[in-house]
């Protein structure tokens, strides 16, 4: 049996509200293998997004463990977690989260800049640019390189966000309702694109969604309710 690229073991997460402790995740066990697509389904408040943030090392678990390639990572110092997040994880969000001051190309290039110093980036800026352009062409935005987010449609913005998530060549993509803000036709196009890239690159995909039809396209569906995996 191969080691899963991403694994959560007995993950608990609770938030404090005054003196009250509100449990959000209650003993989640989940693993995602390389090249596998997993859909996280559940009603609002089930804890899907919180689990995604914990798995993406944005939020530490209250208890339990998170492993990347068999290595425990949830207890690492903040700097190492950030570096790991950059190297191993690509995020795609419902609201795209593009930086409005930057063009599509600059938004994608920013992913490359995150882990390099000014001098290191200066030495590789041409290759980085070529790679970002290739990535944007792959998502069908070769003619929209220098447009700002406000000049792009919702679908185009999400394609830019996908290109940005993939530029650093992560092993896992965590997508939080990537089609939640798109009309059905555009959503279908974005999903087709995501699955096509996932197959080409053999990425692990963890998808948070409310959409049953989208979930059925994944290898596996994990249902959540009140902070626990029900099926």
């Amino acid at each position, binding site marked *: 049996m191969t080691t899963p690229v991403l694994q959560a073991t007995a993950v608990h997460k609770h938030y404090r509200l005054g003196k009250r402790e509100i449990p959000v995740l209650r003993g989640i066990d989940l693993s995602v293998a390389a090249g596998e697509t997993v859909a996280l389904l559940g009603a609002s408040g089930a804890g899907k*997004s919180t689990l995604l*943030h914990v798995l*993406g090392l*944005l*939020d530490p678990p209250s208890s339990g463990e998170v492993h990347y390639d068999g290595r425990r990572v949830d207890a690492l110092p*903040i*700097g190492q977690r*950030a*570096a790991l*997040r*950059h*190297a191993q994880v690509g*995020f795609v*969000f*419902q*609201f795209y*989260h*593009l*930086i409005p*001051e*930057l063009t599509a190309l*600059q938004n994608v290039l*920013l*992913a490359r*800049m*995150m*882990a*390099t*110093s*000014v001098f*290191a*980036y200066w030495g590789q800026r041409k290759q980085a640019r070529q790679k970002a352009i290739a990535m944007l062409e792959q998502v069908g935005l070769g003619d929209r390189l220098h447009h700002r987010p406000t000049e792009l449609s919702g679908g185009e913005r999400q394609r830019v966000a996908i290109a*940005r998530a993939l530029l*650093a060549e992560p092993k896992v993509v965590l997508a939080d309702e990537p089609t939640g803000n798109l009309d059905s036709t555009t959503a279908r196009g974005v999903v087709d694109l995501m699955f096509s890239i996932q197959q080409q690159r053999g990425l692990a995909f963890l998808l948070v969604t409310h959409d049953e039809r989208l979930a059925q396209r994944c290898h596996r569906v994990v249902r959540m309710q009140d902070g626990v995996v029900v099926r």
Partner: protein
Amino acid sequence: MYRLFLAIRYLVTRPINLLGMAGITISVWALVVVVSLFTGFINVIEHHVHQASADLVVVNLPPWANSRKLVAALEADPQVAGVTTRLLHHGLLLRPGHRPPPTPLPGRSALHGGDQPFLFVQGIDPRSEAKVTGFDDWLIHADIPKELRAMDQALLPRDGLPTVLVGLQRLTREGLRVGDRLVLTTARIETDPQGRRSPRKVQFDLVVGGAFKTAHSGFDGNTVFVAADTLRQNLFPDTPDAVQEVALRVHDQQQLEATAGRLQRTVNRVLERDQYAWASVLTWREKNSGFLESVQHQRALMQVVLVVIMVVAAFLMLATLSMMVTEKVSDIGILCAMGGTPLGVTTVFLACGLVITACGIVAGTLLGIVTGIYLEEVRQALRWTTGIDLFPIDVYNLERVPSAIDPMWLLQVAGMAMATGLLVSVLPAWRASRHDPLVSLRAG
């Protein structure tokens, strides 16, 4: 790399940040220009004051001092190039029958003088005075018209009356001509047989002998020269050798302080009163310290005022940066998701503040240097376009607005501005780093 890249993008896409930059630019520019102006002015004023002064003076000579012995002892010093004795008094100099005008406000004539009737009357020996100061040159200054020039032997009696030399500005303003009669009204202290000392009014006639002009208009406006013998006869009739001040010229200006110290010991030895602080040897700078320090004090005050302007500009920058952080909280989440850390996010906003400050410093310093170099041209342009003369150079006997750019001051201003910029950038940057990235990721 992303920190600097994002900081620059945030700045260039937000014109409001120009406000903070403009504030820093203006305050740096003002600090460079105003302090350059004051420094240049102080340099010029010091030069003017020195031109109108002897290098060293021995003041507070006691009445029993043997001036001949003292002068001989001072002349024996190898650094002394010339010595002269003076009598100093005050008095009202008016046309016969004229009443004095109202007393001006205190300090009104501090710099340029000339509009008050109460004057310093210097009793001098023209020959020896010329060896100590530029006295001869003051009488033939290019600005003095021919008809107002003194005769070859200045301060010789004219029509049987002693003569007085008056500053050119005062002379022309009061419409005086060579040969006009004036009355000097003053007082001398007399001791009656019971030993009581009381002032007694003394008046004597003088004739205008000509004009003089030094570079220091304050000196010209407040001083008149008469022959020492004239003052001696009228004010010290019982002391034929009366001397109140000894003025000296030295060979080497670099050794002025050392020479002053040595001559002080000579004076103490000659007066045989080491234990008492009678006569003091003062350098020209010490003699005029009140005036020179007042100008330096004005410069220090201006520096304080302008630093306050810099603080105000910094607050403007703080406001624009805080506004930007509030607007950009949505970016904090995605930066963290892409591998950023709270420290990295802090650096983005800190870099924004530092880039604004650095640009403001560079622009303000360059503008300040250019304005400092062309200050006279700026003054003329302003006068030509608006009619306002911000720096009336005639009043200070100047040919152009003085300016001296001190590289050390530029460095100090840049350092001060950078420290202020850093200080006001830290707060918004720290606030940005405290923002929970998950909140912005959930909010969208």
